[in-house]
């Protein structure tokens, strides 16, 4: 390494070049360290839109009332698992090697999701063992309980990170979930696909617009 050459290079820095370096590094941090809302909202938007449409189109009348087919639920499950894998992979790759308040908040929220969904599965197991599962509210509860939890966690995350898109999305998911409970099966799946999945995709589009304005 030639220290003199570096010094000459550094002396040549003019204010405009310095500002260009700063802008470039900010963009680099945004693209390598910050979690990208477009990826997260986009992945869940596609999973909800396609998954719920599959549930809706495969719903048939059964002895216990209208219900999606087994393979419909399987496709829905695979899509949700894929969105979860994208989320975990993306967040992990962006936040690896970071330490501080934001990382601690992120870790606590991650544990929060785990605890909340463990509770959702336990409550659903209890519902499925009861008579409620055989009635028209069985399908409604099986969908509204996890969606309510998603909405509330998005509200909390939006508040913790001070991210408006995420907060509004959380409120929107709560509204859509409430509406879907009154619609019932099978219309509920259409509501979740278009308003829920559509809401996530709109959130991804908003992030794209905000990103364009910032740079």
């Amino acid at each position, binding site marked *: *390494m030639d220290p003199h050459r*570096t*010094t000459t*290079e*550094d002396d040549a*820095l003019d*204010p*405009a070049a*310095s*500002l260009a*370096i*700063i802008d470039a*590094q*900010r963009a*680099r*941090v*945004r693209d*390598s*360290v910050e979690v990208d809302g477009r990826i997260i909202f986009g992945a869940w938007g596609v999973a909800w839109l396609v998954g719920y449409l599959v549930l809706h189109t495969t719903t048939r009348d059964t002895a216990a009332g209208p219900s999606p087919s087994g393979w419909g639920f399987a496709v829905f499950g695979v899509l949700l698992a894929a969105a979860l894998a994208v989320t975990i992979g993306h967040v992990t790759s962006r936040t*690896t*090697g*970071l*330490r*501080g*308040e*934001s*990382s601690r908040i992120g870790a606590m929220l991650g544990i929060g999701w785990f605890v909340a969904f463990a509770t959702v599965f336990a409550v659903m197991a209890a519902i499925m063992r009861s008579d409620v599962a055989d009635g028209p509210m069985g399908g409604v509860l099986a969908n509204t309980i996890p969606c309510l939890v998603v909405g509330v966690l998005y509200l909390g995350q939006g508040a913790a990170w001070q991210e408006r898109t995420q907060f509004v999305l959380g409120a929107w998911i709560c509204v859509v979930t409430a509406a879907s409970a009154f619609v019932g099966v099978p219309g509920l799946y259409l509501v979740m696909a278009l308003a829920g999945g559509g809401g996530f995709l709109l959130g991804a589009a908003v992030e794209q617009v905000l990103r364009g304005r910032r740079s």
Partner: protein
Amino acid sequence: MSDLDPVIHAQSRLRVMATLAAMPADEEITFPRLQQVLEMTAGNLSTHLRKLEDAGYVEQSKTHRGRTPVTYVGLTRPGRHAYDDYLTSLRAMLDPTRQEQTS
């Protein structure tokens, strides 16, 4: 140009400072991850970090994760102030009307 802090006003160190300042306040990053974000060689990065640390702008804390030693790098409070001042001077140089208004 005399207004600009010479510790920061050097291409490599400016890149390091701008990167650390762009992260959330109080957030630290491991040396290899910072190296990856900056696309700098380890030797080059440690040379510049040492200069920034000598000026009190950057703090390097060594710890262990399991048996592996890990070095976290973060901006100090004086470092953040110095960077903010640098940015203010820079903007004033590029927009003299604003400099007149503020001084």
